């Protein structure tokens, strides 16, 4: 055992000096490895940033982490699928989990008409105090009495919708929607505030009134459409959703991942694509590494023969080469990781892609992308580079170990 560790020490030392013998070549190989590691991790951070932004926007866009509805609401979000509120059982269950916020809403399709134009929208009846910190609208309209300022008939609409309706703050619009008796209910509201959202589609999709006003208009007294919940600890999402699903079979409980399939799909595609890309880049890096090792062995043929003549076993020669490759890989990976961290630091204020604003709008993200460097990506890239790099270097190492001392020494010019 002692002998083995002594040998390993000797080989590690030899390999390290070997790497330094042709600094120019080693630096070039190192650069290729670093660029590979750096580009993989940095690009992953950017791609994850897009995904994280999408998730954040989706959660903040009235979704929350968990939603509770009457059965069939998600498939068909209409007034038919409503439930009685307050509900003691739900209240008790929500008290047992670590919620950051709970918002109870009326949420039904409706049509809004100004003097000039008509648009279809989603009518959301909210309690502004509950929405604070939970959804974008809570933070947009901080004054809780916006609705009651106009005698409980205030409405808050998005800037883009205001333009489309050709109306102004302070003017009246009419909301039309189906009531609980399957008749069309209509009621006039005064625009008490206008909200700006990151996505134009959000501004066009939602109009907000107070929950009481919505309930009165639709004949939903004592009834609501949905409960949105945000959690303090996002990692408990799965646990809590499962618990709520079991405890509330007479309701529909969904996590935001189920409600936003696009975000979830993007995430899984990213996982697949990024992994494939790591493989491609690292295999390309490995070609260069293998080539460098062959050159190094070729130069040292005489020397290898000599070491074998004085008692190095073929296995020792093999390890000598593999160790050299290991040094190159480790140093390349370290530099690559440092570069990636620097890149993330440099881009921490976000990458502005507003030149493609309409495009980002289409996939549902705002125009700033913040790198999101995940430990799992760093680990994956570093492990892959080591595994594929070492695996590739076994080939030249094996060739080196098969040299016979006499032949190898005879090759000296």
């Amino acid at each position, binding site marked *: 055992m002692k002998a083995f560790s002594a040998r390993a020490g000797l080989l590690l030392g030899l390999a390290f000096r070997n790497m330094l013998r042709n600094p*120019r070549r080693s630096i070039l190989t190192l650069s290729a490895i670093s660029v*590979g590691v750096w580009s993989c991790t940095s690009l992953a951070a950017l791609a994850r940033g897009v995904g994280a932004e999408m998730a954040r926007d989706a959660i903040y866009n009235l979704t929350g982490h968990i939603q509770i509805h009457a059965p069939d609401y998600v498939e068909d979000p209409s007034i038919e699928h409503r439930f009685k509120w307050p509900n003691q059982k739900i209240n008790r269950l929500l008290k047992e989990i670590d919620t950051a916020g709970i918002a109870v809403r009326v949420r039904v399709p409706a049509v809004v008409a100004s003097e000039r134009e008509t648009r279809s929208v989603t009518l959301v009846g909210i309690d502004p105090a509950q929405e604070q910190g939970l959804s974008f609208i809570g933070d947009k309209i901080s004054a809780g009495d916006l609705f009651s300022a106009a005698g409980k008939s205030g409405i808050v609409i998005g800037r883009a919708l205001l333009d489309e309706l050709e109306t102004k703050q302070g003017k009246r619009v009419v909301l039309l929607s189906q009531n609980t008796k399957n008749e069309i209910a209509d009621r006039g509201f005064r625009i008490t505030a206008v909200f700006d959202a990151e996505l134009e589609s959000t501004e066009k999709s939602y109009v907000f009134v107070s929950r009481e006003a919505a309930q009165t208009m639709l004949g939903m007294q004592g009834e609501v459409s949905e409960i949105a919940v945000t959690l303090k600890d996002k990692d408990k999402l799965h646990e809590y959703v499962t618990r709520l699903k079991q405890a509330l079979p007479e309701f529909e409980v969904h996590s935001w991942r189920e409600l936003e399939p696009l975000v979830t*799909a993007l995430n899984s595609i990213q996982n697949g694509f990024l992994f494939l890309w790591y493989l491609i880049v690292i295999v*390309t*890096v490995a070609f260069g590494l293998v*080539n460098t090792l062959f050159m190094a062995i070729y130069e040292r043929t005489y020397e290898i023969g000599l070491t074998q003549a004085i008692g190095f076993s073929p296995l020792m020669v093999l390890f000598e080469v593999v160790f050299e490759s290991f040094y190159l890989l480790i140093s390349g990976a370290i530099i690559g990781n440092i570069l990636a961290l620097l890149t993330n630091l440099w881009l921490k204020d976000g990458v502005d892609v507003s030149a493609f604003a309409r495009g980002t709008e289409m996939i549902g993200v705002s125009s700033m992308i913040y790198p999101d460097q995940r430990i799992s990506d760093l680990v994956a890239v570093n492990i892959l580079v080591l595994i594929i790099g070492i695996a590739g270097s076994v080939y030249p190492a094996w060739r080196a170990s098969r040299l016979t001392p006499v032949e190898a020494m005879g090759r000296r010019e």
Partner: protein
Amino acid sequence: MHKAVISVLAWRNIWRNRRRTLLTLLAVAFSSAVLVFFMSLQLSSYDTSINASVSIFQGHLQVQPTGYFKKPKMYHFIREPRALIKNLAELKGITAVAPRAYAYVLVSSARRTVGAQVAGVDPELEKNVSTIPGLVREGEYLSADDLYQAVIGQDLAHNLGVSTGEQITVLGQGQDGSMAAAAFQVVGIFQSGSRDLDRALIEVPLKIFQEVFYLGDAAHTIVIKASSRHRLAELKKNISARLKNKKLSVYSWEELMPGLKQAIELDMASGWLFYISLILIVVFSVFNTFLMSILERTREFGVMLSLGMKPASIIKMVILENVFLSLLGVFSGIVIGSLVVIYYGIHGFYIPGAEEIMKLWNLPTAVKTRLSLRGTLSGPAVIIAANFVVAFIPALKLLRLQPVEAMRAV
């Protein structure tokens, strides 16, 4: 003669170390093939997505009242669409023209009320500019231009809880601001694969639309299908010249769907971020081998110099070696990449779990990749150019080479 000798020398030189050359070639070929495949996949997806978006409903070009697509107002209309259609139909490069009128309405069935968009279409002409008539899954398309018939999207039908043969009531605002209401019989339900259309579009005969919404003989847009997507700028100019009415403008699909165009540009830009990083790595590795091959031949170059060969000729020779290596690698890469593209062109490239995203782009679940000059050559061209440029770094060192010193080098 001299040139030929240099080429032959360069060619032989790259095969002096067969294994090194093969490994370098493999790296270049592998990365070129990757670039060819990914870029072709990207371009094919864009093409499919654009074609689908254009052919389902939008058309290549649309004549509209200036600014209408930003602010679609009932009272901004084309006064005499029939005359204009006749006029445009004569233009070369146009395969079909059709008028449309739009209104936002509240649509009700016996059970439900939702918001939707009504499009008044000419049942005959519409078939030539849009694929919706052919995408009717249940019932049939509008058969006459003077019946209160409607064809609606599948998700809308689901939300309303109606099937063919049932009545829907449409309630909206007429052109003059008055209330407009009418009942239609659902004759067909279409499934276009586009979320927006399936969820919110109702097509009714234009004549009836004009009656219900007090539009007279007017329309809001004229949809134009061109014979090819690639010469729209010219066609647009020709149409513009024919629009004597200054209040009308012609818009291309890029202008009508800026989101699609910019999303494609963004995707392409982010794609290049990935490609550039791969190219950088290949260039490093080619540069490394190239540098080594020059350094180990210092003595040989010294001999050549002392025999009277000019430094410029030696530089030419080593640069040629680099070009041969790049070309050979890139060429094999293109061949392999193209074969993969052809394979997925037949079988379709399927991305598991991507159905929702594909739908957003009007894409089928399996994209058929197509070979194109741009997709095949862009990536490899950058590799060759980058290799060529960095080859000068070690090559120019040869200018300072002194024969005597060089020959002493090991």
